[in-house]
């Protein structure tokens, strides 16, 4: 599971109000490089819950990867930014698409119900009495 998926995933357990964002308690993750697509990031960014994304990166022990506040779009999409090592757009791309959480768990913020992540696959199955 990558953090883009985490950014949209919520708990639907009985008793949850929003079930979002799921608190990431990650034990293991790996990174895999993928090509940066600036147009994709541009279209996606308005939909991203920045705070949830930042919280997820910090939960992975990456306090410096993203700042508390989303940088202004002029900065993120400045000409040539994609080619600059450590630029905002490269960090955002890295956070959303290059980090694969392998083992850990997702905790519902409302009910503390824990959804385990096993071999990269979050188990969001609910028991009958949780629906």
């Amino acid at each position, binding site marked *: *599971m*990558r953090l*883009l*998926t985490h*950014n*949209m*995933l*919520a*708990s*639907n357990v009985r008793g949850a109000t*929003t*079930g*979002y964002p799921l608190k990431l308690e990650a034990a293991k993750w790996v990174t*895999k490089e*993928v090509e940066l*697509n600036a*147009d*994709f990031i541009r*279209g*996606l960014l*308005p*939909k*991203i*819950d920045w705070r949830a994304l930042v919280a997820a990166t910090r939960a992975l022990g990456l306090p410096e990867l993203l700042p508390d506040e989303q940088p202004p779009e002029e900065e993120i999409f400045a000409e040539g930014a994609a080619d600059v090592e450590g630029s905002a757009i490269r960090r955002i791309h890295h956070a959303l*698409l290059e980090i*694969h959480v392998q083992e850990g768990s997702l905790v519902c913020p409302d009910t503390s119900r824990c959804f385990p992540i096993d*071999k*990269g*696959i*979050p*188990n*969001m*199955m*609910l028991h009958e009495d949780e*629906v």
Partner: protein
Amino acid sequence: MKLKQLEGLLGGLTQFPAPKVHPAAAAAASRLSFPSPVRFWEGGQGKSGGASHLFAFGRRCLVQVELEQYPTGPHIASRMLFTAENSFDDITGKVVADFGCGCGTLAVASALLDAEHVIGIDIDPQSLELAQENADDLELDIDLIWSDIKNLNLKGFHIDTVVMNPPFGTRKKGADMEFLSMGLKVASQAVYSLHKTSTREHIKKAALRDFNAIRAEVLCELRYDLPQSYKFHKKKEVDIAVDLWRFVPNAPRSS
């Protein structure tokens, strides 16, 4: 990528098997006990009357009747995704989700057509394992979620396009409607789905009236060549007409 190329790659995926009983599986079945609704099908003497059957052929191959796990063949899958991309620009560079992904054919096809991010969701963990292997074999990155589609909770319209080959709802009435309803809730751009041609009017009405779609059109009619997956299939059901649908959800759109 050319259509034939895509179809060829999808043809190499590991699918659910056609049900023929491996002697080892039958032997294992006779040694193990299962909760009553779950039964092994044994060649030539299929049990009937159980609420649910489980066909098992070794570790990787399970077909559960209740879930109507009809594999999406490479022919249909390649045409579905090719149309979505070439006629509507709904795949390349998009976030695509495959509902009820099974062994991942539509998810893999989306990734092969350069979807930027692909998510496969299924209720069956063995299917997800198979989907993972299929994606790995082609060196594709696909995120998988183990969830019942009807209990899915996705926020924020991150998903552009939903592709799916839902259960037709023959065994569990309305199963395809649950998928369609959820697809139209989470997609921001389009939902592609296959439904029996015989249900065309019903699907259209439900999509537009109940699920808030702003468009619902049949792109083409296909012959669904079901391998005789299930014992209860009568011969006439093996080759059925299905519609390839494109629905446009009433959602905030990215462009």
